């Protein structure tokens, strides 16, 4: 969006602050992120620690941990998502109002982490819900969570009003399908609309190798 930076700073000198509505809107949004009080495993303790006195998440306007998803903007997936827990995670995400964000905190939430070989562990929560920021670490330090919140604030600040976002599309569904418990695994094991194996790894298939 184009506006005159020079004029803006000139006006600022005389005490007049001019902001595009979009920036004001995003400024408000990014400084009042209300996370869902939703701890899964070890990382949840570091999440509590970052809200406690030493790290004090309140300085970023994100200390209001809501117990209900209806009042939350941000889901911090803090810990291992097991297959037994996943339907509830997706259900909670569905219940959050738009615009909503997801931080995958810790190795387990990103990819299954050290437990990825387990039969009951989901190999990354991004198989079912879209993730905005990933924090590696096992568990990440409280500072790392604050850093991730700042990263998310940058993302929110860069979002344009009225376009390119999921929640502005009329036809867009914000309900993500909830998988069912199967006899051996979740059914389906991944939501193909949300998750695709990365492009650069799919360039060679086993069929091509066998052809050679």
């Amino acid at each position, binding site marked *: 969006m184009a506006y005159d930076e020079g004029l803006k700073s000139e006006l600022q000198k005389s005490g007049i602050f001019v902001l595009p509505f979009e920036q004001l809107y995003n400024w408000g949004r990014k400084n009042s992120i209300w996370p869902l009080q939703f701890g899964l495993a070890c990382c949840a303790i570091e999440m509590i620690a970052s809200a406690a*006195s*030493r*790290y*004090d998440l309140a*300085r970023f306007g994100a200390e209001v941990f809501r117990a209900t998803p209806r009042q939350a903007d941000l889901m911090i997936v803090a810990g291992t998502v097991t297959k037994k827990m996943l339907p509830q995670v997706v259900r909670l995400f569905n219940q959050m109002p738009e615009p909503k964000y997801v931080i*995958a905190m810790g*190795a387990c939430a*990103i*990819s*299954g*982490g*050290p437990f*990825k*070989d387990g039969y009951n562990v989901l190999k*990354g929560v*991004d198989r079912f819900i879209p*993730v*905005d*920021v*990933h*924090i*590696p*670490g*096992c568990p*990440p*330090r409280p*500072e*790392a969570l*604050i*850093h*991730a919140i*700042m*990263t998310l604030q940058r*993302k929110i600040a860069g979002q344009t009003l009225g376009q390119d976002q999921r929640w502005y599309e009329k036809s867009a569904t914000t309900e993500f399908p909830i998988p069912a418990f199967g006899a051996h695994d979740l059914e389906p094991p991944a939501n193909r609309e949300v998750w695709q194996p*990365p492009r*650069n*790894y799919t360039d060679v298939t086993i069929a091509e190798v066998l052809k050679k």
Partner: protein
Amino acid sequence: MGFLGKGLFQGMAVTARNFVGTYFDRGTREKLVTYQYPEEKPPLPENSRSFPFLVYDGTPDAMRCVACKICETECPPQCIYIVMDRDEKGKPQQRPKVFDIDISVCMQCQICVEVCPFEAIKMDNDYEKSQYGRFDDLIEHLPDLLKSNEYYNEIKPTEAKAVDAKLKAEAEKKAKKGTSKPAAAAPAKPAAPAPAPKPATAPAGKITIPEDAPFTAEQRAWLAGFLSAGGVATSGTGVSPVAVAETTGETPVPLPEATPAAEAPAGGWPWHDPGLGMSQRMDLVKAAPLADKLMAAMAQTDCHACGYDCRGYADAIAAGSETDLSLCLPGEAETAKKLEELMKEAGKL
């Protein structure tokens, strides 16, 4: 004794004391404990660890990692992936071509650091790694992982000094053992933050003592004799040029013998499996020739720490071109002992 509500008032008094206390806390962090994080970072202790990185000395080419894959095997969540570098002829190069660490899986347990015999992999303390993307952003490749020894000294001074001293001592020991090596005069790897000028830039055997070097006349005479003797000896004995080149910091040159040419027989070597124990491996080679027995005594990681692969080192010992039996680092003392035992049995020691 008390009145109803006394406990409540006591509790409130505690809260009030703590509330007021924050105003009188001047940097002791007894009551006012908050760190204003992005501006003021809590001090990290030296032992603090986040994710692994690879140490190099001087230039990134001189990385300490020899692609021995010990960390890959020992890593509990299996987040390390290593492919050894090879030249056009397929000769292993003692350094990784691919070294990937998937930090989205890494559990920061430091076991890779503990098991590394080369002091090549160490723990970083950078925790600000939040990323938008998962697949490309969270995999660290070789260029991202390589960090200098100076950086290591900076983040972990005590530990790094101890490591430097150890490496220096090892290099000196090695140099003393093979007095024939021309690099004996210089530390094998520039350990100090300011790397010493490398005498190795001159071709091996032709080292001249600089005019301004702080030596007395006697020392000069002795050094000159020593160095020239070393130069002659290099071409004579079986010290592998790779080892020499590595200690002098030059890019490794392939061995003239091209050891890996020894192709595995059709059935492979059944003992060539790092998962087997020493006694199991020795059982497999009961009736085999000496070279096979020697090979079975190695750690079977083909790590090239000795300058050969496992087959090559065994052949070299059996042929008598290699006399040092303690070169197998992954096998540790167990292998050295076994090798000595086998050589004694064969009457070669």
